[in-house]
């Protein structure tokens, strides 16, 4: 009896055996390909999909052209979304562009702060906590800081991940001191590791069981122009191992404040049975049960809105290479008014599994990604219209498909010379 894997290979042999290579020795990735009957090869050989690290893919894009049947799991300049300072820059620019076009989405209002001053906020596009880039915005920040009164800010280095190098400050003197120190060590030409962002710390996060958490949501983008993005149904909440505490002495206690699993893993209270992760479905169940259906629905709508606009903010600058797809990891914090805030977007979300259920999730995630990204015949092809069938979408939901929206809009036209896009 031929197994499905063997059937795959027999089929492929008629065409060609499909090959993948990966920079990560992660079973979630490797097993998903092997299950489809693909062969693993090295980067120098002819591969069809390269599940690469950010470093390697940059080299790849710089070196040569890719064939029509080669896909890669990053967009060439994904740092526009993923690097904290570039994300800020792009969102600021996007909002200004919408304002210039007098788009009501960019409407603003004045908020009076406890410190006395007032600040202008966007009504619908206020999903990024107030952020400044250092050292560029240093002087502007000092001015603005005075308006906020007693407040806590979080400093994050742009070039690092996994919670590395992040810390909180709650006084201007502390910041000034840090700034003087850092200037001594930085080079004259600022590299990404010398650039920081400083954001208003969300000090009223929504707590469950007294614990702080953030959401990790996976968003697969197969094209930026037109924008095609899919949101994975099985996201999760990452909880801090110990109770949330706003006391000043706890500011340095990273286990309370930072929800990155790599940080939490080292806390004494970390539990490897559940890894501090609660499924998004259970989170929804809890919110509905304790707060009601309407507020839950609204929260999720707001989350989708946030993701869509963050992606729209970078569509003009993203290189829309048809060989590319990317699964981004969105980190979102919800405050106790049930408002979601975008903390950051990750480009190679950790494929390391921390618990049994996590392993299953990551496996399914990669499988689902492949299902969306590959044409019906399973062979990568840049000429395919990137419109997966409903069955192929599987555990993803369509977040936005501008292609389909555009087509549907003109499908209503009865005229033959309606402006139908030729999809090739």
């Amino acid at each position: 009896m031929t197994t499905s894997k063997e059937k795959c290979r027999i089929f492929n042999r008629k065409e060609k055996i499909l090959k993948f290579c990966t920079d990560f020795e992660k079973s979630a990735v490797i097993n998903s390909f092997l299950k489809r009957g693909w062969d693993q090869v090295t980067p120098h050989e002819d591969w069809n999909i390269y599940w690469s690290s950010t470093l390697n893919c940059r080299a790849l894009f710089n070196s040569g052209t890719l064939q029509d049947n080669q896909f890669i799991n990053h967009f060439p300049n994904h740092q526009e979304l993923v690097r904290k300072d570039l994300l800020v820059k792009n969102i600021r620019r996007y909002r200004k562009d919408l304002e210039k076009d007098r788009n009501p989405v960019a409407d603003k209002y004045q908020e009076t702060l406890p410190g006395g001053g007032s600040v202008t906020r966007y009504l619908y596009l206020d999903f990024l906590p107030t952020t400044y880039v250092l050292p560029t915005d240093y002087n502007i920040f000092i001015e603005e800081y005075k308006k906020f009164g007693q407040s806590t800010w979080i400093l994050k280095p742009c070039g690092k991940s996994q919670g590395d190098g992040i810390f909180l400050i709650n006084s201007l003197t502390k910041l000034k001191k840090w700034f003087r120190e850092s200037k001594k060590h930085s080079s004259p030409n600022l590299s990404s590791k010398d650039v920081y962002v400083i954001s208003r710390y969300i000090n009223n996060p929504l707590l469950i069981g007294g614990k702080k958490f953030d959401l990790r949501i996976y968003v697969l983008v197969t094209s930026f122009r037109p924008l095609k993005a899919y949101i994975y149904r099985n996201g999760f909440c990452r909880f801090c191992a110990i109770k949330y505490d706003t006391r000043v002495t706890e500011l340095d206690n990273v286990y309370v404040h930072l929800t990155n699993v790599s940080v939490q893993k080292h806390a004494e209270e970390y539990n490897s049975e559940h890894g501090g992760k609660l499924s998004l479905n259970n989170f929804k169940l809890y919110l509905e049960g304790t707060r009601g259906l309407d507020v839950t629905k609204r929260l999720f709508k707001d989350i989708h809105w946030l993701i869509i606009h963050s992606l729209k903010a970078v569509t003009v600058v993203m290189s829309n290479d048809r060989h590319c797809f990317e699964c981004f990891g969105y980190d979102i914090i919800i405050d106790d008014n049930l408002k979601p805030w975008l903390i950051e977007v990750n480009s190679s979300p950790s494929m390391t599994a921390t618990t049994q259920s996590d392993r299953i999730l990551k496996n399914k995630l990669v499988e689902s990604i492949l299902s969306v990204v590959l044409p019906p015949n399973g062979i990568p092809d840049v000429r395919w219209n990137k419109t997966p069938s409903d069955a192929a979408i599987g555990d993803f939901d369509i977040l936005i498909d501008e292609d389909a929206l555009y087509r549907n809009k003109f499908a209503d036209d009865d005229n033959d010379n309606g402006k139908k896009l030729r999809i090739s």
Partner: protein
Amino acid sequence: MEDIKDDAIHHTAMKLAEEIKNLSIYKSFYSDVQKLVSSPNVKKEDFKQTLQQAMKEKGLDTKLRNTVFHWVRTQNKNKLDPLTSLSKASAQWEKRIHKSLNSMCSDLETSLAKIRPQTEHEELAEKWNELSTYSLDLSKYRPVYAPKDFLDVLLTLSGYVPFTREDEPKWEFAHLPLQVKNLDQLRKTYVEWANGEPLLGVNPNMPSIVQGFATLEAERIALGERVAALGYAPVIQEYLKKGSPQCLRARLWSQVLGAEVKQQQTNYFNQLKKSVLEVDLMIDKLIFKDVQLTASNDDQYFVFEDLLYQVMLCFSRDSEVLSAVRSLAGAALTVAVKGRHGPDCLTAFPPSGVIPFHGFTMYATPFCYLYDEPVQLYYIFRAFYMRYWHRLHYISTHPQGIVSLCLLYERLLEANEPLLWIHFRNINVNPIRVVFKWLMRAFSGHLPPDQLLLLWDAILGYDCLEILPLLAISILSFRKENIFQVNTLQNVDAVLADLSTISVIPLLQLALMKP
């Protein structure tokens, strides 16, 4: 004939009126009525009529009806269990548990009960809302017993066989002279399900047959809002038969069980908390251990561990629980409180009379998806325990008790899945072993919370636990092909280990609908 009936009703009404005076709500209820009487709406000339009208408007009418409803439900015939072998076994089991506790206590050189030292008292009070940070050395404490141990005791119950045949296994519950329903009788109980009526747990998005609602869910939500606003418990119970939307469950469940929280309840809870802080019972360590072993390790419930500590600790001090389960539990263990003198020096151990076993916390965990505040969580858990859960871990002949449920499971399996039944005999696996842990825990911890809550809707709606063995059979039936392929208990367990993909309500409705 009518006269006799009227007399009987009158007699019951008089009795009821007397009984109500003893209930805790009586005082505030009476003063509410007095206030109404002094209002202009109530007229001396037509006292009865106007008073009744005014009561209806103020909701006192509903309150009274609910009170009667709850009172009727809590009337238990406190007679001794008719089956002496069972009551004997029950007493013996309780004795064993007490002995085990005592020996654990002397092994660990501690006291069963003692006054808590001041520093400990203060620390506990300070950390009350985050007891997961209260460090205790629990390494030497073990749960008193686990579901497996309890099952072994139950299996010895059925040891009496009048005639032994060589090929007859000795472990069947069928030898007990207890009456249980068969599938046709269950269909009469769960009549709405058996008739194929639309249930929320099957497909909430199916189009509604009622005008004005797009989906079944929307229809149920609208109906549920009205039912919740009316607040009349029997109507809510009826509503729950077809499943409740998650957004209304918290309200509806509290109302149907009479577990709403007012100031009186909050005060009582605080008293229980005080009791926990003052006297250190060895059982506290067992409670801590159980929460740590079960809820804290569970990826569906770990978030709520701090709430659960509070609830479980206070529960152990609640003597009102003892009065509800007294007919089942033997004499509660009474111990001296070390450090206390005089008339108060003895206490029931624990005051609730309930000695927790491994996994006991799981009776409370699913409620965390409905209530985020400890007092409400406490009262709903307590109400469920006093009405349903206690039956799952005490031995009795009650038709809803664990023994009857096991027998029901056995009978249903043999009658409706004969091939599976034979298969189990062939591989020499007692079929109850495979599902017992599900039954004893009402599936908590085995089903994902959303499915579990739908199941518990049905328990409330039909006010009976018979759905548990029915679900067990349905799951076995669903996975029978896989079960046929294996021939050891471990492998059968493996086939049934992961229930995360089970859709509980469709499976049950399928079983109940005639083919």
